């Protein structure tokens, strides 16, 4: 009789232990499910905030000292040549890439575009300021006036044309580090 009672108690304890383990497992799984939903939203909101930041920055970028030609929304092309060589600016702006594309290249494909350098400037299409080469990126563009010094009959003047800033935002996706 004593043996029977002990065994019954043991079974009861075992039953309870399994039940507790099952409950804990259930809550852990449910928690993980909820957390995965929350964290996927977190990635979305991080991307949203980064895109908002890119958008608000790019609208004022032409007037920043690095680009400004001294007139509103006007970029100095002569400064761009220098900026392209200055890699220190890669971590200065909140963009993953930054390109200035001249109006003449709006209808050209990436392969057709001639990238500007000190040797071919000003006969070129795009200034690649920097590119962090991120895996996932979304770009936003903003129109600007692009001006540079030009001479005609020994007279120096500002020659301006339409261009656009193209700024990239790194997209934070689930699974990316």
């Amino acid at each position, binding site marked *: *009789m004593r043996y029977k*009672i002990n065994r019954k*108690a043991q079974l*009861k*304890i075992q039953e*309870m232990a399994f039940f*507790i383990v099952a*409950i*804990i497992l259930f*809550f852990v799984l449910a*928690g993980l499910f909820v957390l995965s939903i*929350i964290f996927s939203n*977190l990635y979305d*909101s991080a991307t949203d*905030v980064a895109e*908002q*930041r890119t958008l*608000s*920055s790019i*609208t*004022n970028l032409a*007037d*920043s*000292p*690095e680009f*400004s030609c*001294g*007139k*509103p929304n006007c970029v*100095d092309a*002569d*400064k761009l*040549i*220098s*900026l392209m*060589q*200055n890699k*220190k*600016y890669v*971590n*200065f*702006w*909140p963009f993953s890439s930054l390109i200035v594309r001249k109006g003449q290249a709006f209808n050209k494909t990436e392969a057709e575009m001639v990238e500007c350098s*000190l040797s071919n*400037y000003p006969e070129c299409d795009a200034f690649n300021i920097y590119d962090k080469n991120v895996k996932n990126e979304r770009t936003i563009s903003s129109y600007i006036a692009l001006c540079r*010094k*030009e*001479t005609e009959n*020994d007279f*120096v003047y500002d020659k301006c044309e339409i261009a656009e800033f193209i700024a990239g935002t790194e997209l934070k996706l689930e699974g990316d580090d």
Partner: protein
Amino acid sequence: MIKNKSAVSMPFNWIFALIVGAAILALAIYGATKFISTSEESLYTESAAKLISLLDPFETGLASGKSAQINFKSPTRTFYECDEFSNQPFGRQTIAFSEQTLGDIWGDKGGAVTIKNKYVFAENIVEGENMYVFSKPYFMSFKVADLIMISSGEYCFYQAPQEIQEEIENLNIANIVFTKDLGNCTGKTRVCWSNNDCEIKVTANRVVKDNKEMYYSGDLVYAAIFSSSENYECNLKRLKSKFNELSLVYSDKMKVIQRYGCGTSIGIDLDLIRTQKISSSKEFVSLETNIERLDASNSAAKGCKLW
């Protein structure tokens, strides 16, 4: 005997259930608390990031200044830190955010969000339901950056020079009042251009605050008034680094425009300032003589001005 056994088994069941129940309950409470604090932190971090986006329109462009008021639904704290050594050569600042929750308890500080392309002058902690922001362009012959001043609370400017009063009134900054009687400054931070006993004293080239001296010239006076000395000194070093990089851009531009027959000798003056190292606001302000010479060299270039 059996009856005795059941009498023993009942308390055991109860004890077992109580211990396990308490453990589960403790785990659940711990989980919920952690979840709330994580959510709070992510929300505050997002708020700080959004606040940085709100500062973008304060880029002055060609304007002489901009101002606005940011209102929050509940009292908030924003934390400002500056580090001139990270993100070389530009340095960086961080903004963190916190909010008053139920029972007037302050929530834990959210994650610090980094700003690398702005120069924010503020106290280490700015607290209140309203935040007042204004910006002024800063020139070292050419424009270097925009100074963004953030404050909360009321400021009382006593015996301020006429040009400062006009500038502040034109910018329509709501938390600054001008007075000729210190008696009108009760409950406000007193900023005095005199020897009176005020929280902030302004002399011809210095702002004295919390027994610390911050040297200034021109519009840096606003930065010194509204900033902690740590943020001020650090941001001046960041501004000098920005000047150095911009001077390289202008040196390269000089080489480009020389191809069009533009010759200038500005390079020497640019190099002279660029190579000068500064370790304090006093040394920063002392650059002024060389900046005036740089300005004169650029003005002399007429059609071939670099800026």
